[in-house]
């Protein structure tokens, strides 16, 4: 139904076991069986991938190890240890982790409620449809929506003031760490619901019945079977949510301007005006981001493969 979840599905499949294992064995075997028609069909795709995905990224990786004159250096990488950049990475990691963990927990709770909570069927389909929309509703407009809700003149802020005489802005600032986290949850929770729902559906009714005939209570079933079976999916989705938040910039930029210096915003400013006064350091910053998102995605792929193997 939805894009994000379906792409996530592919990610789990052949990809995770495929490229490393198979390509490693005999990478060019397919060349011997190629026909001209195949080349015509696949060449533009491969060319596009090289020019607009692989090479720009590799260019940055190489750039991270070059000084202004193009000589090899570790200087840029070492400069990532500077206080401003470390602070950026730290706030980015905190926001991503908080929105991923909360998004995963809340998303799981909602998914369990609509799938296993015996709510009317139309609620489930409505939630799934809405999740498809909300997980794609990010960026600038999302920031506007939360400003209109929790900003200084936002509906909820005003309601709290007029109804309870309570000034929300004293304890909660939309332009802060928690403000950004709460906003990110708007696309993190739906993404979690979309990805975890099939896994919850995959928990067979017979497992809980078998556990019951063997004397287990509902709690014991969840502790020994239900949760362990879901665990790889939870862990995998958690990494995916983390990567998702870590790379996001538009929402934060529109919400906080540059008052909350997360890594993508710092990088944005660096690309705009070389605020770090070192183009190589910009590349190193990018490399840092690539490493972190790639790591999170690798965890996702590996863990998903394990989960799939179980559920055959």
């Amino acid at each position, binding site marked *: 139904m939805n894009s994000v979840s379906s792409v996530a599905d592919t990610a789990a499949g052949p990809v995770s076991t495929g490229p490393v294992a198979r390509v490693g064995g005999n990478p060019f075997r397919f060349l011997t069986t190629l026909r001209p028609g195949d080349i015509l069909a696949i060449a533009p795709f491969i060319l596009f991938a090289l020019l607009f995905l692989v090479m720009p990224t590799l260019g940055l990786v190489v750039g991270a190890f070059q000084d202004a004159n193009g000589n090899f250096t570790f200087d840029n990488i070492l400069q990532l240890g500077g206080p401003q950049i470390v602070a950026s990475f730290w706030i980015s990691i905190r926001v991503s982790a908080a929105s991923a963990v909360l998004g995963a927990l809340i998303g799981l709770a909602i998914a369990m409620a609509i799938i296993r909570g015996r709510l009317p069927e139309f609620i489930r389909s409505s939630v799934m449809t809405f999740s498809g929309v909300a997980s794609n509703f990010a960026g600038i407009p999302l920031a506007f929506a939360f400003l209109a809700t929790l900003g200084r003149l936002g509906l909820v802020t005003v309601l709290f003031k007029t109804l309870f005489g309570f000034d929300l802005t004293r304890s909660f600032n939309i332009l802060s760490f928690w403000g950004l986290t709460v906003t990110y949850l708007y696309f993190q929770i739906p993404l979690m619901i979309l990805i975890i729902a099939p896994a919850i559906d995959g928990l067979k009714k017979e497992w809980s*019945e078998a556990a019951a*005939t063997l004397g*287990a209570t509902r709690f014991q079933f969840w502790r020994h079977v239900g949760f362990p079976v879901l665990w790889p999916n939870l862990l995998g989705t958690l990494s995916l949510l983390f990567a998702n938040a870590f790379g996001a910039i538009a929402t934060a930029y529109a919400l906080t301007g540059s008052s909350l210096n997360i890594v993508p915003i710092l990088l944005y400013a660096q690309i705009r005006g070389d605020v770090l006064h070192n183009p190589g350091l910009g590349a190193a910053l990018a490399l840092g981001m690539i490493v972190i998102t790639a790591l999170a995605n690798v965890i996702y792929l590996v863990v998903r493969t394990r989960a799939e193997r179980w559920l055959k």
Partner: protein
Amino acid sequence: MAEEFLRIDKLVKSFGGIPVVKGVDLGFNKGEFVSLLGPSGCGKTTILRMIAGFERPDSGRIVVEGNDIAHLQPNQRKIGMVFQAYALFPNMNVAENVGFGLKIAGMPRPQREARVEEMLKLIGLSGYDKRFPFELSGGQQQRVALARALAPSPRMLLLDEPLSALDAKIRVSLREQIREIQRELGITTVFVTHDQEEALSISDRIVVLNAGSVEQFGQPFEIYNRPQTKFVATFVGQLNTLNATVANAGQKTVTVGGATVTIPSLPATLRDGEAVALTMRPEAVSLADGATRDIVLDGKVAEVHFLGSVIRLKVDLGDNAISLDTFNDQRTPPPPHGAPVRIGIASSDVLVLGN
């Protein structure tokens, strides 16, 4: 047998206003292997699930060893169950699966391991303890599921179509193994199936169910040879139908194929001149060369199916067609297609079934 181990009384269950089980009464003896046999939707699985505690009866009682178990949750009933789709826990290896019930019951590890070992030996899967379900074939998974159900020594075993997901060959060997283990442990077992051959071969007694009611409850031999209803006769085994006319209801005689024959099973409710359907199993019909039989009819061979040890002939009698089974005989080849044959039926083998 003095006291019934499991007593089912006036059991009723409907789903969304549609009655699925309509007042079923049954009594099973200790150590008995009973099959619930019937087409899909006959209520057999629902009865099993009510015994297990997954469905709550609308009314009626389920009594085990003298105690009504209605108020017990499934996890308090001490009843083992095997499912059609194996339902092994995917996150546990074979030993952990088999030992799950023991672990829940709080059995210490050394005893648990010994019991698991014993169960794996029983199902012939010693040495498979570290395998995961996805590494096993369907037949192996179902054997593990059986061991898992039996490990906590339940007082009763429920099998819900445990063989239907398996290949034909494995299905036969596993059902023999299940029966062997059941006899060895002497555990009262209820087996749900829609496969009449399976039920006939494995059971001490069979309950034939149709549309939520018991049609017949008896030993396989009785069920097959003395079906009490038309449903049982047609659902269990093959059946021939021969059209006849009642000659004299009082003397139990009918006219068939120009001759008048006495049929011992003819119901007294019929009137003279009424049409009646005589039914019989294919193996009750024989090629009657020379031999005298009560009913003798002439026809032509329409089809010859050589099945190995048995040859099934379809004989065209003009207004009737009849299948008959004869054993293969190395010295006599079966009659060719179109050959004229004479068939004979003993009147004592004829069933006259009411509706």
